[in-house]
C-alpha cells in the first residue's frame, strides 16, 4: 500500500509558477517553523494553553516565533523587516500554512496586517515606538475594521473621528476584533467627515473598552472594542486623512491571503490523518480504504484540497505581485476555501465515525479554526458579492 508522499521540490526557475517550486531559503523558513511548532506546540500543548493562557499562548512563545521571522516578512528592510525570498507574502503564507497544520495560536494575521500598514504608511514615531516591538514579538497589535452587522468592507464602517483640539476624538464599536485583549495598539478604521482614515490607538487609552467574546476557537481570541470619546493626537493618523481606502483594501487582501493559507494547512493536516485512518481501520475484515464508496469520497476531498492549495497560492502570488487581479483572486480564494474547508473537515468527521465528534479527538480544534477564519475578514458570501461587483453586476 505504498502511498504517494508529499515531496517538496526546490525552485530552479526565476519565478515560482506554483507553490510547489520554493527557494531553498523558503524551504528553510518552512522547516524551521515546522520544527519549532512540533517541539513547542503540538496539538496537545494547544489544548493546555486553551485553559492556561489568557491570550491563548505564552508571550515568550510568540517572541520566539517572531525571531523566526513570523512578524517581519511584510515589512521593508529599512523598517527592520525583510523577506527571505524577496516576496514577503509568499514567505508569510508558508508560515501561515504551518501554523494551520498544528492549529497553533498567535495573532499572525493582525500583527502582520498592522506591521505592513505601519511600514507602508506609518510615520517615524509609529515605526520606532510601535512597529519595532511588534517585529521583536514583544508587542501585539490588532486591526479594527468590522463593526457589528458590518461586512468587512469600507461601506460597513460607521465609526467616526471628529477633529478636536489639533487631534481627533474617536467614537464607535468594532467587532469582532482578533487579539484586541492581547494588543498594546489598535489600528482603527474610522471616518473623518465621512472619509476613511486609520488611527493608531493605544489599547489602554481612556475610553477604549475591550470586551472579550466567547470564541469558537480554543486559543484564538476575539473581542468587541468600544471607542467612547477616545482622544488621540493628529500623529495617530496612519497614512492620509480621508485617504485610507486603498490601504484598507491592501490590508484586507494581505489578511485574506494569510487566512487562506492557514485554512489550507489545517485541512491538509486533517486530510492526511483521515487518509491514514482509512488504511488502519478495519471493518468486515477489510480496511476502510478498500471500499469504493469511501475511496470516491477521498478522491473528491483530494481534488478539493489541491484546488484549495492552488487558489490560496494564486491569491498570495497576485497580492504579492500587485496584480490587477489581486482583489478578485483573494475573493475567489476566500470564497472557495471558506466554503470547502469546513465541509471537508466535516467529511473527515464522517469518515472517522463517532470518535470524530468527541472532545478528545483533535478534529474539532481544526473545525473551530477554519470556522473562525471563514468568518473573519469577510465570509465566502461577502467575497462573492465583491466578485459580482467586479463582474460589473
Amino acid at each position, binding site marked *: 500500500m505504498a502511498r504517494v508522499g508529499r515531496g517538496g521540490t526546490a525552485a530552479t526557475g526565476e519565478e515560482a509558477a*506554483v507553490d510547489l517550486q520554493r527557494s531553498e531559503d523558503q524551504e528553510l523558513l518552512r522547516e524551521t517553523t515546522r520544527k519549532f511548532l512540533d517541539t513547542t506546540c503540538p496539538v496537545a500543548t494547544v489544548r493546555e494553553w486553551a485553559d492556561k493562557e489568557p491570550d491563548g499562548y505564552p508571550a515568550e512563545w510568540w517572541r520566539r516565533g517572531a525571531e523566526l521571522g513570523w512578524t517581519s516578512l511584510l515589512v521593508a528592510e529599512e523598517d527592520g523587516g525583510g523577506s527571505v525570498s524577496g516576496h514577503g507574502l509568499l514567505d508569510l503564507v508558508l508560515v501561515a500554512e504551518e501554523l494551520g497544520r498544528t492549529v497553533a495560536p498567535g495573532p499572525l494575521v493582525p500583527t502582520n496586517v498592522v506591521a505592513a500598514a505601519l511600514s507602508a504608511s506609518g510615520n517615524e514615531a509609529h515605526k520606532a515606538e510601535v512597529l519595532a516591538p511588534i517585529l521583536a514579538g514583544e508587542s501585539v497589535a490588532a486591526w479594527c475594521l468590522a463593526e457589528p452587522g458590518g461586512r468587512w468592507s469600507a461601506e460597513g464602517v460607521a465609526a467616526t473621528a471628529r477633529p478636536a483640539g489639533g487631534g481627533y476624538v474617536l467614537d464607535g464599536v468594532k467587532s469582532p476584533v482578533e487579539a484586541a485583549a492581547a494588543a498594546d495598539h489598535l489600528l482603527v478604521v474610522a471616518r473623518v467627515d465621512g472619509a476613511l482614515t486609520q488611527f493608531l490607538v493605544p489599547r489602554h487609552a481612556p475610553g477604549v473598552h475591550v470586551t472579550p467574546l466567547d470564541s469558537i476557537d480554543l486559543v484564538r481570541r476575539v473581542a468587541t472594542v468600544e471607542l467612547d470619546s477616545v482622544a488621540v493626537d493628529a500623529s495617530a493618523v496612519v497614512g492620509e486623512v480621508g485617504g485610507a481606502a486603498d490601504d484598507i483594501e491592501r490590508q484586507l487582501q494581505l489578511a485574506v491571503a494569510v487566512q487562506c493559507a492557514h485554512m489550507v494547512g489545517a485541512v491538509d493536516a486533517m486530510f492526511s490523518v483521515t487518509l491514514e485512518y482509512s488504511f488502519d481501520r478495519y471493518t468486515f475484515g477489510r480496511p476502510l480504504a478498500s471500499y469504493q464508496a469511501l475511496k*470516491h469520497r*477521498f478522491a473528491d476531498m483530494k481534488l478539493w484540497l*489541491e484546488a484549495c492549495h492552488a487558489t490560496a*497560492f494564486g491569491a498570495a502570488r497576485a497580492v504579492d505581485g500587485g496584480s490587477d487581479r489581486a482583489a478578485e483572486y483573494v475573493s475567489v480564494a476566500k470564497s472557495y476555501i471558506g466554503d470547502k474547508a469546513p465541509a471537508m473537515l466535516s467529511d473527515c468527521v464522517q469518515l472517522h465515525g463517532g470518535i470524530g465528534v468527541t472532545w478528545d479527538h483533535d478534529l474539532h480544534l481544526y473545525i473551530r479554526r477554519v470556522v473562525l477564519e471563514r468568518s473573519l475578514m469577510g465570509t465566502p458570501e461577502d467575497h462573492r*458579492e465583491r*466578485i*459580482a461587483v467586479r*463582474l460589473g453586476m
Partner: protein
Amino acid sequence: MAESTATEDVEAFRLRARAWLAENMPRLAEGVDNHQIMVEDEYAVRARQLQRTLFDGGFAGICFPVEYGGLGLSRAHQQAFTQESIPYEMPVVFNTPTLSILAPTLMDFGTEEQKRRHIPAMLKGEELWVQFLSEPSGGSDLAGLVTRATRDGDVFILNGSKIWSSGAFRADYALCLARTNWHAPKHRGITCFILKIHQPGIEVQQIKMVNGWNEFCQEFFDDVAVPVEDVVGEIDDGWTVASRLLIHERNAVGGASPYTSGMAGGSVGRGIGAHLAGVARDLGRQDDPRVRQLVAECRVLDRVGQQLVERVTTGISSGHFPAPAGSLPRLFAATSGERNFDIGLEVIGAHAAGWTEGERAGELARAFLMRQGGSLGGGSNEMQRNIISERVLGMPREFAADKDRPFDEVLHNAAPSRPGGAGG
C-alpha cells in the same frame, strides 16, 4: 524548407512569423475565435487549405523533426508562433488529435516507412486523423475491447465497431485498436493498426446528440482488410502503444503538447462567470442578491479551475505529483461544469421553458441537456475517482474479474451488430 531556420533565435522567428501571418493567413473577425469557426460545415476543407498554406510558408510542424517535414525548432518557437497566431484563423482542427496525439505516437512506435508516409502528409493538410479506441460494448474498460482482427496471410481482417470518434466522417485515417489474440489476458492480445477510413467495409455514422451536435461518430467494420505493414508497434502489444497515446492525449488536453499550432478559443477565454453576468444583465436580474451569489460562484469555479490546472501540470512535470494526478483537473472541470449548468438554469429562471430566438437564455437552457457530457467523455467521473484514489492516494485497487485471465474466458459484452440489425 526548414534547414535554413534551424538555428534562428526565438525573437527573430517571432518577427518573421508575425510578418508572414499578416501576409498569408485570414484575420479573424472581432469577437470570433477559432473555436467558433470549427463548427462551420465547410470548415474541414478550409482547414486543409490553411494547413497547406502553413506548410508551404515554412511554418508547419514547428517542433516536428526536419526529416518528417517539420522545422525541428524548440518549444519556445512553437509558443511564440501560437501567440502571434491568435488574431488569425488557424487550422486548429489538425491540432487534436492528428498533430498532438497521433503524430507523436507514430513517431514513438511507427516504422520509418510509416512515419515518412504519414507525418509529412499530416503537416501538409492532406491527412486528418482520428482515434478509434472506444467501443459501444464498454466505455470505461478500454482494454476490454472486442473488435476482432484476424490474420489472413499478409492482411488482418477487421470486424466490429468503434464509437465516440470526433469528426471521423471528415477524416482520412485512424489509429485503431483491435483484438488479435483471444487467449491472452486482455492487455496482451491487442494490436494497433493504421486504418484508412473511407474504404469498402467501413461505414461511418454521425451520432446526433441531445443538443443537436453531430460531431461524434460510430464506425462499423465488415471484413475490412488491413495490410500487415499497417501494424503500429508489435502484434499483440498494442496496449503499449495505447498507453503512450494516452500520455500524449493528456499532454494535449492539458495544453502541454509541443506539436500544436494556434489556439482554439484563444481570443475569448472569459469564462462562464463573465458570460452569466452578461445574461443576468440581459434579463434585468443583476441586482437580485441570489443571482449575484450564483454568478460569482461560477467565476470562482472558473478561476480555481485555471489555478488547479497550473498547479497540477507544474507538479507533474516536477515530480511532485504522479502522472495520474492529471485526473484532478479533469474531475474538477467535470464537476464544476455540472454546477455551472445548474446555475445557468437558475439564472435564466422561467426563460428555460421558452425563449425568443437568438436570446442567450435559450443557449443556456439547451446547454443543460448536455450537462453530463463533460462527466462522461474521456473517462467518467467515477473512473477519475478510481484513478485518484488508487494511483494518487495509493488506496487498494478495485477487484478485477479479468486480471491475468485469457480474454476468451472473461465475461464480456458481445460486439454490436450492424445498423439495421437486431440490438445495437
